[in-house]
Protein backbone atom coordinates (compact mmCIF):
# COMPACT_ATOMS: atom_id res chain seq x y z
CA UNK A 1 0.00 0.00 0.00
CA UNK A 2 2.85 2.39 0.69
CA UNK A 3 4.07 1.83 -2.87
CA UNK A 4 0.75 3.22 -4.07
CA UNK A 5 1.22 6.17 -1.74
CA UNK A 6 4.66 6.96 -3.06
CA UNK A 7 3.65 6.72 -6.69
CA UNK A 8 0.48 8.78 -6.41
CA UNK A 9 1.98 11.39 -4.09
CA UNK A 10 4.94 11.91 -6.40
CA UNK A 11 2.56 12.34 -9.35
CA UNK A 12 0.54 14.83 -7.33
CA UNK A 13 3.71 16.66 -6.28
CA UNK A 14 4.60 16.99 -9.96
CA UNK A 15 1.13 18.33 -10.68
CA UNK A 16 1.49 20.85 -7.86
CA UNK A 17 4.87 22.00 -9.19
CA UNK A 18 3.34 22.54 -12.63
CA UNK A 19 0.54 24.51 -11.00
CA UNK A 20 2.88 26.76 -9.04
CA UNK A 21 5.05 27.39 -12.12
CA UNK A 22 1.86 28.27 -13.98
CA UNK A 23 0.94 30.83 -11.32
CA UNK A 24 4.37 32.40 -11.55
CA UNK A 25 4.62 32.38 -15.32
CA UNK A 26 1.25 33.74 -16.43
CA UNK A 27 0.76 37.46 -16.55
CA UNK A 28 -3.02 37.77 -16.44
CA UNK A 29 -4.80 37.57 -13.08
CA UNK A 30 -7.51 35.29 -14.45
CA UNK A 31 -4.93 32.70 -15.50
CA UNK A 32 -3.43 32.78 -12.04
CA UNK A 33 -6.87 32.29 -10.50
CA UNK A 34 -7.48 29.19 -12.66
CA UNK A 35 -4.10 27.79 -11.61
CA UNK A 36 -5.00 28.44 -7.97
CA UNK A 37 -8.26 26.53 -8.39
CA UNK A 38 -6.32 23.64 -9.87
CA UNK A 39 -3.89 23.72 -6.93
CA UNK A 40 -6.73 23.32 -4.44
CA UNK A 41 -7.99 20.27 -6.36
CA UNK A 42 -4.50 18.74 -6.40
CA UNK A 43 -4.02 19.32 -2.66
CA UNK A 44 -7.47 17.80 -1.99
CA UNK A 45 -6.40 14.71 -3.96
CA UNK A 46 -3.20 14.53 -1.93
CA UNK A 47 -5.09 14.75 1.36
CA UNK A 48 -7.46 11.99 0.27
CA UNK A 49 -4.59 9.70 -0.73
CA UNK A 50 -2.90 10.32 2.62
CA UNK A 51 -6.12 9.57 4.45
CA UNK A 52 -6.61 6.33 2.55
CA UNK A 53 -3.13 4.93 2.87
CA UNK A 54 -2.17 5.91 6.40
CA UNK A 55 -5.65 5.98 7.96
CA UNK A 56 -5.09 9.60 8.82
CA UNK A 57 -8.65 10.70 9.53
CA UNK A 58 -7.68 14.32 10.21
CA UNK A 59 -6.96 14.75 6.49
CA UNK A 60 -10.64 14.39 5.69
CA UNK A 61 -11.60 17.34 7.88
CA UNK A 62 -8.79 19.35 6.31
CA UNK A 63 -10.04 18.46 2.83
CA UNK A 64 -13.58 19.62 3.63
CA UNK A 65 -12.34 22.96 4.94
CA UNK A 66 -10.01 23.34 1.95
CA UNK A 67 -12.86 22.70 -0.46
CA UNK A 68 -15.07 25.33 1.14
CA UNK A 69 -12.41 28.00 1.57
CA UNK A 70 -10.92 27.36 -1.86
CA UNK A 71 -14.33 27.83 -3.44
CA UNK A 72 -14.91 31.11 -1.61
CA UNK A 73 -11.44 32.28 -2.63
CA UNK A 74 -12.12 31.46 -6.28
CA UNK A 75 -15.35 33.43 -6.23
CA UNK A 76 -13.69 36.39 -4.51
CA UNK A 77 -10.91 36.51 -7.08
CA UNK A 78 -13.49 36.28 -9.87
CA UNK A 79 -15.41 39.25 -8.45
CA UNK A 80 -12.19 41.19 -8.09
CA UNK A 81 -11.14 40.49 -11.69
CA UNK A 82 -14.59 41.56 -12.85
CA UNK A 83 -14.38 44.86 -10.99
CA UNK A 84 -10.88 45.43 -12.32
CA UNK A 85 -12.04 44.91 -15.89
CA UNK A 86 -14.89 47.34 -15.30
CA UNK A 87 -12.52 49.99 -14.08
CA UNK A 88 -10.50 50.04 -17.30
Amino acid at each position, binding site marked *: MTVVAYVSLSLLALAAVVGVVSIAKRS*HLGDRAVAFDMLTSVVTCGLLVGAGVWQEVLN*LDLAVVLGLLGFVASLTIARFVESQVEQE
Partner: protein
Amino acid sequence: MNDIVQIIRDVVSGVLMISGSILALLASLGLFRLATTRARMHATTKPATLGVLLCGVGAALQMASTSDVTKVVVIIVLQLVTAPIGAHMLSRAVGGK
Protein backbone atom coordinates in the same frame (compact mmCIF):
# COMPACT_ATOMS: atom_id res chain seq x y z
CA MET B 1 -11.20 -15.41 3.24
CA ASN B 2 -10.78 -12.15 5.06
CA ASP B 3 -7.27 -11.91 3.69
CA ILE B 4 -8.46 -12.12 0.08
CA VAL B 5 -11.09 -9.44 0.63
CA GLN B 6 -8.40 -7.23 2.17
CA ILE B 7 -6.08 -7.77 -0.80
CA ILE B 8 -8.80 -7.04 -3.34
CA ARG B 9 -9.77 -3.91 -1.43
CA ASP B 10 -6.17 -2.72 -1.33
CA VAL B 11 -5.65 -3.38 -5.04
CA VAL B 12 -8.84 -1.58 -6.09
CA SER B 13 -8.02 1.35 -3.79
CA GLY B 14 -4.51 1.55 -5.16
CA VAL B 15 -5.62 1.52 -8.78
CA LEU B 16 -8.24 4.20 -8.13
CA MET B 17 -5.82 6.45 -6.28
CA ILE B 18 -3.10 6.16 -8.89
CA SER B 19 -5.50 6.89 -11.75
CA GLY B 20 -6.84 9.86 -9.80
CA SER B 21 -3.32 11.21 -9.45
CA ILE B 22 -2.61 10.69 -13.15
CA LEU B 23 -5.73 12.67 -13.98
CA ALA B 24 -4.68 15.48 -11.64
CA LEU B 25 -1.31 15.59 -13.37
CA LEU B 26 -3.00 15.72 -16.78
CA ALA B 27 -5.18 18.57 -15.58
CA SER B 28 -2.13 20.53 -14.47
CA LEU B 29 -0.42 19.92 -17.79
CA GLY B 30 -3.58 21.14 -19.48
CA LEU B 31 -3.07 24.49 -17.77
CA PHE B 32 0.19 24.79 -19.62
CA ARG B 33 -0.71 23.47 -23.02
CA LEU B 34 -4.09 25.00 -23.69
CA ALA B 35 -4.09 28.39 -25.32
CA THR B 36 -6.80 30.62 -23.87
CA THR B 37 -7.99 31.22 -20.32
CA ARG B 38 -11.40 29.72 -20.95
CA ALA B 39 -9.86 26.61 -22.48
CA ARG B 40 -7.77 26.24 -19.33
CA MET B 41 -10.96 26.28 -17.29
CA HIS B 42 -12.03 23.17 -19.17
CA ALA B 43 -8.94 21.50 -17.75
CA THR B 44 -9.77 22.70 -14.26
CA THR B 45 -13.32 21.41 -14.19
CA LYS B 46 -13.23 18.06 -15.91
CA PRO B 47 -10.10 16.00 -15.20
CA ALA B 48 -9.50 17.56 -11.79
CA THR B 49 -13.04 16.75 -10.63
CA LEU B 50 -12.77 13.19 -11.88
CA GLY B 51 -9.38 12.89 -10.18
CA VAL B 52 -10.83 13.96 -6.85
CA LEU B 53 -13.73 11.55 -7.36
CA LEU B 54 -11.43 8.59 -8.02
CA CYS B 55 -9.05 9.41 -5.17
CA GLY B 56 -12.05 9.87 -2.89
CA VAL B 57 -13.59 6.50 -3.75
CA GLY B 58 -10.19 4.87 -3.32
CA ALA B 59 -9.81 6.44 0.11
CA ALA B 60 -13.38 5.64 1.13
CA LEU B 61 -12.80 1.94 0.48
CA GLN B 62 -10.03 1.96 3.07
CA MET B 63 -11.96 3.76 5.77
CA ALA B 64 -13.29 1.84 8.75
CA SER B 65 -16.16 3.88 10.16
CA THR B 66 -19.33 5.36 8.66
CA SER B 67 -18.50 8.91 9.61
CA ASP B 68 -15.28 8.81 7.60
CA VAL B 69 -17.05 7.51 4.50
CA THR B 70 -19.66 10.27 4.88
CA LYS B 71 -16.92 12.88 5.09
CA VAL B 72 -15.43 11.56 1.84
CA VAL B 73 -18.86 11.79 0.22
CA VAL B 74 -19.08 15.40 1.42
CA ILE B 75 -15.67 16.16 -0.11
CA ILE B 76 -16.61 14.64 -3.46
CA VAL B 77 -19.97 16.39 -3.65
CA LEU B 78 -18.33 19.69 -2.68
CA GLN B 79 -15.78 19.38 -5.48
CA LEU B 80 -18.41 18.26 -7.98
CA VAL B 81 -20.70 21.19 -7.25
CA THR B 82 -18.18 23.99 -6.77
CA ALA B 83 -15.91 23.37 -9.74
CA PRO B 84 -18.46 24.31 -12.44
CA ILE B 85 -19.71 27.33 -10.50
CA GLY B 86 -16.19 28.65 -9.93
CA ALA B 87 -15.35 28.18 -13.60
CA HIS B 88 -18.55 29.94 -14.64
CA MET B 89 -17.93 33.00 -12.48
CA LEU B 90 -14.30 33.26 -13.52
CA SER B 91 -15.12 32.92 -17.21
CA ARG B 92 -17.69 35.70 -16.93
CA ALA B 93 -15.11 37.93 -15.28
CA VAL B 94 -12.35 37.20 -17.74
CA GLY B 95 -14.10 37.27 -21.09
CA GLY B 96 -12.10 36.53 -24.20
CA LYS B 97 -12.16 33.32 -26.18
